[in-house]
């Protein structure tokens, strides 16, 4: 039905990626510094970083010759509030229901 090229929820479903987000949340880090915290092979960590960046949960920033990864607070907030659009749909429907029935009553 729907094909998301970058599924942010799939991204945070992985425990290693969640660990990376927690790590980077405290301070911006290079790929090497992030990888040194894991037993996983460096290319695997790179792949995780790529996915997190594609989902916009991480942002890259060039400083001199190094690239630092930052947390994207705006995107993280969106994910935390992912239930809101679902709630909004029902709220809109129920608001309409109330209006329709008030008119029905006065007819």
């Amino acid at each position, binding site marked *: 039905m729907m094909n998301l090229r970058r599924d942010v929820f799939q991204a945070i479903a992985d425990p290693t990626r969640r660990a990376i987000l927690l790590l980077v949340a405290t301070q911006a880090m290079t790929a090497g510094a992030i990888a040194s915290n894991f037993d996983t092979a460096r290319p695997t960590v790179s792949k995780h970083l790529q996915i997190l960046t594609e989902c916009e949960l991480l942002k890259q920033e060039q400083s001199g010759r190094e690239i630092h990864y930052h947390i994207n607070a705006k995107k993280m907030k969106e994910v935390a509030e992912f*239930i809101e659009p679902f709630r909004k749909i*029902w709220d809109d*429907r*129920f608001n309409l229901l109330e209006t329709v029935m008030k008119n029905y009553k006065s007819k």
Partner: protein
Amino acid sequence: MELKTKINAEDGKQNLVITREFDLPLELLFKAFTVPEIIEQWMGTKVLKLESKKHGSWQFETSDAKGNVVFKANGTIHEFSPNRKITRTFEMENAPFGVQLELLEFEKLTDDTSMINMHIIYESGALRDQMLKLPFAQGINMAHNRLEDIAKKLK
């Protein structure tokens, strides 16, 4: 402003509860769920069939401006107690979300106010989460498509 419609979806569970209070007498609130022409107005969908009784069934269909069917759903009614409760199933056609069980309870608060408590149970926690994320994901997708449209025009 206080949120009128509340959703309670606990982590790792396969159900959720939607609650809402209305400035409507109980009878009018209940009517909004049983009269096809009224459902069509607030749900924005066409009611093909609605048998509001035990063992009855229902069928909704929504088309876009061009007349293409974009949403089709159906289910059966297991309990129909006027002004009190509707128990029904809900299944979206051609969608991988399975069947959900919906328990709708209606309650009188005062002569002019009432509330609904919708308890929805999904086949699994994963399916519940998918349904919850759908509007969010569509929002992201729409934003993404808008960006692509803008980018195309810039070329």
